[in-house]
């Protein structure tokens, strides 16, 4: 990755320590994950150590440090989804693809994450695929749905 491409994210006078998290977020939005180059670049820009940046980034569950899959699957395991059988959906993914939360499939087709709550509790159980939310999911519906993603 070129520093130039990362440089773009810093153009709007972001130079305070308080801008660290928004900068990481913007970078992840564009590149999918936090790369080593990104950390090095921000470290120089904000004059804080790389260690410190890793310390902050690893505290927040949003940030990932490996390349994501082609499609992101997030199963909600909030309280409402738990009560309505969200665990069954999580089991469906781990049984079908043999992956756990935070991992990607070998062919890099899906990356998978279990999340605490997507805030669509009245439609529980909920699954989010590539940012699109599907409500009232069952393992059967999920299986059929995932087949449409290549």
């Amino acid at each position: 990755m070129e520093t130039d491409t990362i440089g773009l994210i810093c153009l709007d006078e972001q130079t305070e320590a308080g801008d660290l998290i928004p900068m990481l977020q913007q970078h992840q939005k564009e590149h999918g994950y936090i790369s080593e180059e990104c950390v090095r670049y921000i470290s120089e820009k904000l004059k804080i150590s790389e260690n410190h940046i890793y310390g902050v980034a690893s505290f927040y569950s949003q940030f990932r440090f490996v390349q994501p899959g082609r499609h992101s699957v997030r199963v909600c395991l909030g309280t409402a989804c738990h009560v309505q059988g969200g665990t069954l959906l999580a089991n469906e993914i781990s049984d079908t693809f043999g992956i756990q939360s935070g991992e990607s499939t070998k062919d890099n087709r899906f990356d998978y994450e279990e999340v605490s709550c997507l805030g669509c509790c009245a439609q529980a159980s909920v699954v989010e695929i590539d940012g699109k939310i599907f409500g009232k999911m069952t393992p059967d519906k999920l299986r059929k749905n995932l087949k449409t993603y290549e």
Partner: protein
Amino acid sequence: MNEYKEIREKALNQWEELANNSIPIIYLGTASCGRAAGAMNVLKTIEETLEKFRQKAHIIQVGCIGPCYLEPLMDIQLPGKPRISYANVTTQKAEKILQACLKENDLLPKLAVGHFGEESFNSQSGIQRFFDLPMLKPQVRVILRNCGLIDPENIDHYLALDGYQGFINALESGPEKVIHEVKESGLRGRGGAGFSTYKKWEICRLVESDEKYVVCNADEGDPGAFMNRSLIEGDPHAVLEGLLIAAFAVNATQGYIYVRAEYPLAVQRLKKAISQMHQKGLLGKNILGYNFNFDIRVMEGAGAFVCGEETALIASIEGERGIPRPRPPYPAESGINGKPTLINNTETFGILPNILRNGGNWFQQYGSHGNTGTKTFSLVGKVRHTGLIEVPLGMTLRQIVYDIGGGTEKPFKAVQTGGPLGGCLSVAHLDTPVDYESMRSSGSIMGSGGLIVMDESTCLVDLAKFFLKFFRRESCGNCNSCRIGTRIMVDTLEKITRGDGEPRDLAILKSVAEAMQKTALCGGGQTAPNPILTTLRYFLSEYETHIHEKYCPAAICSRLFDYQIITDKCTGCGRCVKVCSTGAIQGQLKEPHTLDISRCIKCRLCYETCRFDAIIGVPTKQPYFNESLIELTL
């Protein structure tokens, strides 16, 4: 004042044009919950159908109006007729309704759930009023007054409905009067702890500083709660107006809204709303010609539950790990960058415009003494009518669960209030009024307002484990009692739910929970043991059954029961045979099926699929292997 009159006049004109519509208006609920139910597909169908009919119509995407179980909701307002609502609209249904309403002038009273007009329209149309639905009738809409009714992305809609009038009143009357009005209203913080709002303001106002901050806490991390999301998605300007009022009262110059990363639509709507405010002169220097400067920045959370705690939230805004610090000093004295910082919950800000518009006394008419006003709750779980509700404080749980929620399908077992840090209350508590003090004395908390209803198919030991696991994952790890306490409690609950529970485990759970309550640093750690303590207090027998009889009555803890088919209830429909992936269920159509336990992996699919309650969990007959004992002998 004149500037405000000008922008409001324009907005009113636009609103009136819409009210006296010459072409049909189609409203569609496209908040996150509506989208989860498929509203975006319906939107596409509406656009295509209108194209096909060559029919002109306004399509307005509105926020959540409350009864999420009816989503997606599509409303049609024909010229000269009130707005009529249709529920659970699929793409096919949408086409059918549009065809009938637009082409045949048939309002399909059988499909309609309610209208928004006068009561006299009832007999004319054969449709009842929307707000007379059993779920909506006992509710009072103050905070949610605009949600689902206006276009949240159009500031003129908000302005036309007295928007920013409360802020104007504040500007006219001066900061002391504003704080006095808030004091008069008796408003308490809606984030959960119930601290007097005006007191916090007074402290922050009196601290001398060149810079002060106001922060809106929209880091709604409680799983099972979505009140803040719905409010921001449905009426972002209400929250922003509240922020302006608070900033004016404490003399702040910069505002932040800290929103969860999981709420992209809310973030998008806030950003749009803020740019509209700049255009109208409601933000920036010399707002509306008054000597008041203020700006608002949206900060996205990065996925940490603990950042809902105010000191952790400040750390996060400063670009640090979201770890709480001891108080005092309170943020009102020393917050972001050491400057005085006023932090309130999203809902508190959402109420403020109403108080400033109508007066503190007006607000007192709702609720009970010491617990004034209304509060929003997300009513979810096993109730029939799930959704976002707003009720006066002091309403009983029974009214909420049964009158508004419509009760449960299977017998009611428990209701969890206050999110993962709250407690599970049993049938005996159904007549408890929902207010700050009553909730606390029953061992739970009001919290931000998640209400999760559970019936007999929920295992409370498993649920306590779920909450503690959640908190173990989210604990920032700063203080020992929380880091180690959650670990011990989760391990003990794991042990009980896999069938290795011993009687002394209950004492361990209790003592660790109590120790954590007393010694944890932040409000999160102190309340995290609540689910354990309340379930131990009100559902002790369920723990005992798990430990002594090695049986899970709700058929959740997979090692502690076997599935069985009740032949009398089984109709032989074959649905369970289809879903069973291991072939454990066999049987001919229309004849009772059989279940081979040795092949059953307890995936629960058959249990969830059966419509006749013919599949139940019974105590297991298979000899039970205690793995820890095997390890010992090896």
